[in-house]
């Protein structure tokens, strides 16, 4: 093995580099998806009520909304609560001094189970003439922005998926070719082994072991690189995302330990690709 060090080294570094890129990209894609999902889940419908709405009508509306399948939660915000929240959000601002009385309306804040249905929900507050139904003053859900957001997340999702598949394929092809080359470099050895009566398995096993070992060690190295990358670089980005956008499920900081699954996946993938590459590459040389 020591005499084949160069081929050995090439195979290991190929595995390490390609799987590192795959892993790095996986983390980024996961985080971007998390941010997008979080933004999507923040989509909600605010139904502002007229000041003169009767308690009866209000209660009827609330029950009605609660009965819809797409609705996750309905919160009633009274005029007082709205004012309080407004004051809290704008603490120390000049604007507070200019407010007299309570100009803010009461509202229902509706969170949805499927944010994509936001428009349909909003339309239920409009009658067939295009006016808001009785007691409702306005319905707000960020009409234009929501539609764009959804089409962007859909496109981003499929692009990310495609890129990951391409990267994986590239990694597999590269590793396969490297291992194939290292076997090709030793075809004479295989030929001689076969000539002196070695069984196919006798020839195969050391190569399979070597392929597995190269894949395994290479993927371990890529995991170590990823680990340092995550702990010293990516984690800062994630902290910033958590601080500014309150996104919870990120690859490194999340409670799901996604990063550990990525590490484990890379090691399994590395070993498997090494083993299978050797096995396929050998087929050509073993028939002497």
């Amino acid at each position, binding site marked *: 093995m020591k*005499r084949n060090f160069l081929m050995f080294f090439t195979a290991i570094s190929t595995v390490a580099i390609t799987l590192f890129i795959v892993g790095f990209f996986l983390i980024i894609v996961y985080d971007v998806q998390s941010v997008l999902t979080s933004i999507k889940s923040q989509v909600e419908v605010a139904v502002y009520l007229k000041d003169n709405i009767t308690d009866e009508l209000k209660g009827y509306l609330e029950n009605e909304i609660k009965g819809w399948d797409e609705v996750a939660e309905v919160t009633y915000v009274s005029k007082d609560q709205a004012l309080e929240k407004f004051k809290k959000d704008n603490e120390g601002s000049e604007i507070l001094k200019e407010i007299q009385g309570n100009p803010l309306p009461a509202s229902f804040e509706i969170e949805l189970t499927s944010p994509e249905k936001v428009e349909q929900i909003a339309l239920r507050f409009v009658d067939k003439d295009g006016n808001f139904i009785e007691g409702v003053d306005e319905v707000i859900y960020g009409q234009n922005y929501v539609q764009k957001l959804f089409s962007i997340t859909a496109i981003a999702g499929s692009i990310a998926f495609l890129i990951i598949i391409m990267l994986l394929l590239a990694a597999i092809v590269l590793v396969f070719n490297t291992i194939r080359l290292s076997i090709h470099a030793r075809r*004479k*050895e295989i*030929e*001689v*082994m*076969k*000539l*002196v*009566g*070695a*069984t*196919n398995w*006798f020839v195969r096993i050391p190569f399979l072991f070597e392929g597995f070992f190269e894949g395994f060690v290479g993927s371990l190295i890529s995991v170590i690189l990823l680990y340092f990358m995550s702990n010293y670089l990516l984690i800062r980005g994630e902290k910033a995302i958590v601080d500014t956008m309150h996104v919870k499920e990120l690859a490194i900081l999340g409670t799901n330990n996604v990063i550990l699954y990525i590490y484990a996946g890379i090691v399994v993938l590395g070993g498997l690709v090494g083993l299978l590459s050797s096995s396929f590459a050998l087929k050509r040389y073993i028939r*002497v």
Partner: protein
Amino acid sequence: MNMIEFRNVTKIYEDKTAALKNVSLTIKKGEFVFLVGPSGSGKSTMIKLLIREIPVSGGAVFVAGRNICNLKQSRIPQLRRNIGSVFQDFKLLPNKTVFENVAFAFEVIGKPTYIIKLQVPQVLKLVGLEHKLQSYPHQLSAGEQQRVSIARAFVNRPPILLADEPTGNLDPVTSDGIMKLLSRINLIGTTVAMATHDKNIVNSMRRRVIELEEGEIIRDQKRGVYGI
């Protein structure tokens, strides 16, 4: 007893060239046979058929009475362990020492280390290389390299030794040495078949000569010479 038998053997390669046409011959145990003829006459094809490197297109090849044409893939290693092969280009592994190259043939068939340590030096002594155990092939002369390859072919004491132009790369004096070695191996009962172009060697040895031309046997002569 017939050690080797070709019964109406035809070999047509994928590119449609007929390397052997309906060839029949028998070689008895302990014989020394030269296969002669110009390049492309089918000598090497016969050797490749014997170690099942290639399959026959028609007819049958027998080794020690067994038809090797319908041998299962998994039984081919067993066949090759009973046939030593020597080639023009030696087929030594450049990154292994002389000792390791010969020991390789033992390791492959799973012999224990103590037997390897005992028998490899013995066979290297037989070929006159007992002082070069730790040399690498590139440190040896061509004749010495061929001796190593003969040692490797013979270390298992196979009943058959096939040699495909073993002196093709060697000068006449060195070739003589190789022939003496093959004769000795033959004398202890090994059946030897050797394909060669070397007129002088064939003429000086006076052994059985089988001459091939375009895939057919045109002469089979006891104690023959290379050609007329």
